[in-house]
């Protein structure tokens, strides 16, 4: 495929070499549109404009606000858990409540916050704008996708109010305990959780098909795949992963619902639960784990790949330098995506599956470290000899590299099957995955919001508040999770309602727990500053100029800012280059937007893209 791409490049890029001998019309030629311009739905009433909107930008904001709202609940739950761990004497929580909060916190953060925010939120906002299209391919289905998500969230929240409360099965929902009496919420709570997940997957599928088809079919003229911003590559690949991975979760949920409600035995062997023989027989609990992690591991990359893409763009724009090794970055994203389907059982090294699988999955897991490392190298090489503006998006991106690097390297511990044996199910694991798929992507989310906020509202966020928010969030969350790894070395198991002063613990972990909890409370509180900033700046923020960061990608080149319905006015843009022509020698400005024709920048010594 890359050969074909090179070939096309040759054919199209003659014009960049010697502009003077060729007429402007030739060097600016872009292939004709293959399909007619999109017919858009125009809303007529208040309801169809502000509630049941079919405009992807608006749906993106709806998705993001719903996800962030749900995420705030997840944050509060984590506070309650942390207070229990640090000050067990207070007796605020019963064990059952603790486990319910652990479960809801995990599921909310992974699915209802991060997945929904990156794909539903940023996907909807950025795909049409960055690809130069007027909207998603199927705006009506897109609207349904959002409302299915809302219903999924409501069903999830409803589980707090049913008899027995929400499920306390842990976010992995492992049977048999998820549906047997020893676990809180094993009657109603778990069913609502499963139904909510099923709704989420249904809703996501509608959105996901939209994202993929829009990227493949509705790109502007001249926007070849290899000119797309990495943000789009990340979101696109993550969506493909999600469409392949979520079905495994879906069937797992359906089967467990049947086990629970109809007494089938997909995952349930013969067992004696709290002294009572149950009627199940012959099912396999490990089958569920395979289904769950066949979804669950790609899920990590469903969150990570959009973050990878977005951070690449933020680094490039704010370092005023092209992203280093663009093609390698694209193939790394695609490669990581493909490999992510062959590593799932590294979550199951000590699950009781055939131990010989360990050799295969340790090898594939460590192979995936290679393209991931390449991405890190390319990010930092992008900084090299850049012209680095320490704006908020840049600060968050730098913080992302540090936390992601830290979390990625501890992944090399856990992926290496031998090392995983003593560390699995300890706080080392908790620290690892929070660092790598909690903090790191969230830092990108913040960077992205500071970056694209003017595009949505036409105003800038307050810089001072933003800086305070940044330093507390970055340093604070590092202080939470870095020491937590060492609790794992001590051997403190995760999912313990309380860990007494056990004889094997040589140095008290209570002190460390208290430190971590205080840091967590501070970091959590700092998010209020961020919320305040977002709410107040929408009205009172400094007015943003057009393209405030001087970026090259298309979303900043709309005729109006914020872009209107249909994005592009009369005609959709033509694209002449990739999204990273920063600091091109010979060009007047230090950036050349994607839609600037070569005839306008004849002196610039651009490399072919």
């Amino acid at each position, binding site marked *: 495929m890359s050969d074909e791409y090179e070939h096309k490049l040759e054919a199209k890029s003659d014009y960049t070499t010697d502009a003077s001998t060729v007429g402007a019309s030739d060097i600016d030629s872009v292939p004709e549109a293959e399909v007619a311009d999109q017919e858009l739905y125009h809303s007529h009433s208040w309801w169809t404009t502000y509630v049941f909107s079919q405009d992807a930008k608006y749906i993106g904001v709806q998705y993001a606000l719903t996800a962030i709202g749900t995420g705030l609940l997840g944050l509060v739950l984590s506070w309650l858990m942390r207070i229990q761990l640090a000050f067990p004497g207070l007796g605020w929580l019963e064990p059952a409540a603790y486990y319910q909060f652990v479960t809801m916190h995990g599921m909310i953060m992974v699915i209802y916050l991060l997945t929904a925010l990156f794909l539903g939120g940023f996907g909807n906002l950025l795909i049409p704008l960055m690809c130069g299209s007027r909207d998603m391919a199927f705006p009506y289905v897109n609207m349904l996708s959002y409302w299915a998500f809302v219903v999924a969230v409501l069903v999830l929240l409803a589980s707090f109010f049913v008899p027995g409360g929400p499920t306390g099965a842990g976010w992995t929902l492992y049977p048999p*305990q998820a549906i047997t009496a020893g676990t809180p919420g094993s009657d109603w709570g778990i069913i609502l959780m499963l139904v909510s997940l099923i709704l989420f997957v249904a809703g996501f599928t509608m959105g996901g098909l939209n994202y993929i088809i829009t990227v493949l079919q509705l790109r502007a003229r001249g926007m070849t795949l290899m000119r797309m911003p990495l943000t789009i590559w990340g979101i696109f690949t993550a969506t493909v992963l999600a469409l392949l991975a979520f079905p495994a979760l879906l069937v797992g949920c359906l089967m467990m619902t049947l086990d629970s409600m109809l007494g089938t035995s997909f995952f349930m062997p013969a067992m004696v*639960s709290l002294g009572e023989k149950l009627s199940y027989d012959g099912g396999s609990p490990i089958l569920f784990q395979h289904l769950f992690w066949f979804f669950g591991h790609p899920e990590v990359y469903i969150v990570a790949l959009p973050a990878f893409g977005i951070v690449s763009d933020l680094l490039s724009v704010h370092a005023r330098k092209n992203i280093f*090794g663009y093609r390698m970055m694209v193939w790394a994203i695609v490669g990581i995506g493909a490999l992510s389907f062959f590593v799932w059982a590294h979550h199951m090294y000590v699950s009781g599956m055939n131990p010989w699988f360990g050799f295969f999955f340790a090898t594939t897991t460590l192979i995936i470290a290679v393209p991931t490392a390449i991405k890190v190298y390319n990010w930092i090489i992008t900084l090299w000899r850049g012209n680095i503006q320490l704006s908020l998006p840049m600060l968050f991106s730098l913080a992302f590299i540090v936390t992601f690097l830290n979390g990625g390297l501890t992944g090399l511990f856990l992926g290496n099957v031998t090392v995983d044996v003593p560390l699995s199910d300890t706080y080392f694991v908790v620290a690892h995955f929070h660092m790598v798929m909690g903090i790191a992507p969230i830092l990108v989310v913040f960077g992205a919001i500071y970056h694209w906020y003017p595009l949505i509202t036409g105003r800038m966020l307050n810089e001072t508040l933003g800086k305070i928010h940044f330093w507390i969030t970055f340093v604070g969350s590092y202080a939470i999770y870095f020491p937590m790894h060492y609790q794992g070395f001590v051997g403190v198991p995760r999912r313990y309602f309380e860990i007494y002063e056990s004889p094997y613990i040589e140095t008290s972990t209570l002190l460390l727990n208290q430190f971590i909890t205080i840091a967590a409370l501070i970091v959590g509180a700092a998010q209020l500053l961020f919320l305040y900033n977002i709410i107040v700046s929408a009205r009172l923020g400094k007015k943003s100029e057009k393209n405030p960061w001087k970026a090259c990608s298309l979303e900043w080149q709309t005729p109006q800012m914020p872009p209107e319905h249909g994005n592009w006015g009369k005609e959709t843009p033509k694209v002449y280059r990739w999204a990273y022509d920063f600091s091109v020698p010979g060009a007047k400005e230090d950036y050349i937007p994607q839609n600037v024709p070569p005839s306008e920048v004849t002196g610039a010594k651009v490399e072919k893209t």
Partner: protein
Amino acid sequence: MPVAVAIVFLLITVGSVVFHFWSPWWWPEVASNWGGMDDTIILTFWMTGFVFVVICLFISYCVWKFAYKKDKRAEYKPEDKKLEFRLTWITTLGVAALLAPGLVVWNNYVTVPDNAYKMEVFAYQWGWKYRLPGDDGILGKTDIKYISDENPFGLILEDPNGRDDRLVDGDELHLLIDRPVKFELRTIDVLHNFYVPQFRGKMDMVPGIITYYWITPTKTGDFEVLCAEYCGSGHYAMRGRVIVDKEQDYKKWEAKQITFEKMLAQNKNVKNLQLAKSTK
């Protein structure tokens, strides 16, 4: 501003290293033959730690050195095939160097030596029991159907190998030092995991199948057992004790554990007694 930011990033890097070397939180000394796991962790620490420090220092340097200046232009260099190629290969070699020793240790972990003493660890919500093979060295077969108050382990009555099995009905297990032991892990309800931090080993227990792992205890002492797979509200309280003994103490303890046969006889006596009482 750029200097300050660079310094903070530098401090975070240095702080991480300092914390690593001076942290009082570290693993309890290994008390089994799995010191190799610790060695692999140490190796991984050195390699990944090196990468972490180098990359973080690089970032700090770039932030300071290439800070924004209005009249300055960044370098324009989209690709560098040679550099990318080199970095890819160095990374691949590094990763292979981590993986290879790991796989060797794993191979030992999943290959149980023939002379290992086979015993059963029995988990339930929320506690531990143990079953020793008796003089014949063979554990009797079990079935969940047979579990009852009289037969708490669910031994199959017809299996003669089970008659002399010794049942440890309590959460304290004794092990003999320097004798390899294979834990045959069994649960009757949900997932559990038999974990002693000093032994390093771990494996989930799954209802319906028998899982296993093996260790050789290398130190006498009193250790805590923790359940390491979430098993419901009582998970955190599912603890037990393992005591590693020298031969003499071990023999004494073993002799005190009741055999299945004796237990059945006792049950019968109790029943007869009750019968006799009720007919009076």
